């Protein structure tokens, strides 16, 4: 902690706060960790069984994933205010037809500030 202060004071006096944000000459820029982990499970409301092949996507973003055989999903996404997560039955009648569902996440500041911000979603879909 003491060393951090010394570092910041000397770096600040150099008028180069950028001194702390570096990249190796053949490396990438630094990542400032502006994301959170969304994970969870999708089940049938009627049977309680996990549903495979449900598309889980973020509204207005390119990202999506599909639930696995245990109905589970997991992906990192950019930290944004109240993201809308969409659950869509993309394989149609292959494993019964389920209604689509949208969920707007309200994420507490305390979660956002943690080292590994994570949101777990238990989703139930109704039969169509």
């Amino acid at each position, binding site marked *: 902690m003491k060393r951090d202060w010394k570092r910041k004071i000397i770096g600040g006096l150099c008028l180069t706060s950028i001194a702390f944000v570096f990249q190796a000459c053949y490396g990438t820029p*630094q990542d400032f*960790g502006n994301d959170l982990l969304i994970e969870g499970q999708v089940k049938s409301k009627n049977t309680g069984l996990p549903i495979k092949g449900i598309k889980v996507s973020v509204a207005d973003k390119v990202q999506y994933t599909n639930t696995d055989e245990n109905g589970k999903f997991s992906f990192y996404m950019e930290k944004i205010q109240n993201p809308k997560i969409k659950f869509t039955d993309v394989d149609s009648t292959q494993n019964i037809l389920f209604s689509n569902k949208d969920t707007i996440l309200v994420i507490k500041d305390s979660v956002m500030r943690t080292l590994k911000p994570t949101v777990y979603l238990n989703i139930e879909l109704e039969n169509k």
Partner: protein
Amino acid sequence: MVTMLKQVLFQEFKKSETKHHELNYLFWECTTRCNLNCRHCGSDCSKDSFYKDMPLDDFLKALDTIESPSENFTVVLTGGEPLLRKDIEICGREIRKRGMRWSMVSNGYLYDNEKHISLLNAGLGALTISVDGLENSHNWLRNNDKSFERVDIAIGLAASSSRLNFDVVTCVNKRNFHELEEIREYLIQKGVKAWRLFTIVPIGRAKEDEEMFLTDNQFRELMDFISESRTRKGIDVKFSCEGFVGEYESKVRDSNFFCRAGINIGSILIDGSISACPNIDRTFAQGNIYADNFFSVWQTKYELFRDRSWTKTGKCAECKDYKDCQGNGFHYWHGEKKNVLVCHNERLKKTTNR
């Protein structure tokens, strides 16, 4: 006066950083396989690498030796071409599970929409892609007729993501030197926000090819181009931290030159060697993850990286800028290490200021 004071303070800052040598940035040379055969490659990678990709578990065992990783600790996947690994997303997720971040250096050839999404899903946070000119000059350097077409798609995707801290790098050589303004406009039009320019190190395949290397006058023109570009809006242009550039130090970068190899930057290379940046002479390896505890090596070795007084030899011996430069980029010390391979400062001094 202010400039001198800043220089002295920065020297103190470097001393302090060197003394504490906090590991912030770890290269993982996860493969040496490559899908291109670039003319300037410093690593002599090839389609059929001598080495097998390092198993993820071997790397993780080394990573897990790190006690209390620093706040911004990042693992940078490099190669070869990292996207040739089929388990790249699994690698990324395992790094994120440990509360660490990861990023990647790529030639962009395999970076399509599907890969873009799967990498974001796996927690990729920063990305660097090489664009070495407009179509003809890029394809020439990359030795592949489709390379530009593919990288054009890749940078469009990467630039469209507000999550990724993304930049483009360009190795400036005699062929693309006259295209720099056009490349800048092209990148702005693609939505790229940051552009880093390099010169080519005379090692690997490049060293025998005159077309790779700028003349001293061209090098000064490159500094002028970067300096002028930094006064414009639209894209953040900078010279890489490859070397000390004397009078241009405050004009071409955000911060003064500071080679952090072995001070804040470590690496685990394809054969398990523990070193710093992957382009550094491999005889500088400090240990091997298959025999040593990685973090213990980081904490207790790296003397040659943290005390660079041994570089005060050859043309550096009498240099009055040595305190600011300290032997230039560490990757410019090869072979017998009796003289620095390239002195950017000397190149600039050879040319007259216009």
